[in-house]
């Protein structure tokens, strides 16, 4: 049976579990891009983002991560896994500098090593936005990236981040405001 762009994720997963390597390759190629871009913007490091993608798909193929199609789509499941892997990666730094409470809408102090400012994108304008995004507090960054870059709904973001929709809405508003402020200051500084 051939694999086409219309072959469903469920079908590819079923075939992957029965040992079909092309099905797994198709599944990976279909979803690696968004997961990698999310991780890249979220953690600011290409190497860490690649590790996150690899670990997420490794969990999928080994069965360590149990995806249930009844509880959501595979892309959203992978976003959730990637987010948790990034949080795990950031754990040592978070222990040194505790995060604010989940419902705290105040911007938190930014850890320089948590958002490396090494150049990632070729476009200067886009790179400037990415750097401003990298300076946002992580819980704002999640909401802004998933909503603005991946077009996810409030409900989907709430499921991925394990928060309620009202919190998504407020984090998104605060995140956008912080991003706008950073870009405005940068523009003023440039002039």
């Amino acid at each position: 049976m051939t694999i086409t762009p219309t072959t469903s994720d469920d079908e590819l997963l079923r075939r992957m579990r029965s040992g079909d390597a092309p099905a797994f390759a198709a599944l990976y190629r279909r979803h690696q891009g968004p997961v990698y871009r999310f991780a890249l913007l979220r953690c600011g490091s290409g190497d860490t983002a690649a590790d996150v993608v690899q670990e997420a798909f490794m969990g999928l193929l080994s069965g360590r991560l149990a995806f249930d199609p009844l509880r959501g789509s595979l892309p959203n499941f992978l976003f959730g896994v990637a987010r948790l892997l990034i949080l795990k990666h950031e754990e040592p730094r978070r222990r040194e500098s505790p995060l604010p409470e989940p419902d705290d809408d105040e911007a938190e102090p930014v850890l320089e090593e948590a958002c490396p400012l090494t150049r990632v994108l070729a476009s200067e304008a886009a790179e400037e936005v990415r750097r401003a995004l990298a300076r946002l507090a992580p819980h704002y960054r999640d909401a802004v990236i998933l909503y603005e870059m991946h077009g996810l709904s409030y409900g989907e973001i709430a499921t991925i981040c394990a928060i309620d929709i009202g919190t998504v809405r407020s984090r998104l508003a605060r995140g956008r405001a912080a991003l706008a402020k950073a870009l405005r200051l940068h523009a003023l500084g440039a002039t």
Partner: protein
Amino acid sequence: MHDDDFPELDTRLAQLRGALAQVDAPRCVEKELMQAFASQSARARPWYRRLGMLEWSAAVACALVCVAVVGLLSLPPRLADGFDDSPLVRIDNGGAFIALDSVERIEADPAPRLIETEVSRTMLAALGLPVTPENAGEAVRAEMLVGAAGEPLALRLTSID
């Protein structure tokens, strides 16, 4: 959603979206995942699931040939020699009795009757009786046992020598 103090935010975010559109995970990630998949599949599947359709077909064919050979070798000698003991064809004292239906059917017929006739030796060859090139064209006198409905039940050849 709009931020009044920085109206071009959406434009800037669109620039970032555009720049990221073609950014993918490094190729080495896929390579490593495919290697991991291959090694895991080999580990997870038992030996009989690793065989493909071709290997399975060959194995089944070999097994059938072996069974056939063993079966032929273990046949009783009387079966291997022919049908002399068959109750359906019996030859005695130069005559032959050929059952054309089952013994039960012949015995169960309510009103069988005998009809005298002649049968060519070539037809008898098809029934398993000996025919030589010299007598192949001859006919043999026969008595045919016919059932009540007219169907032939058995054939008795009075002299086939």
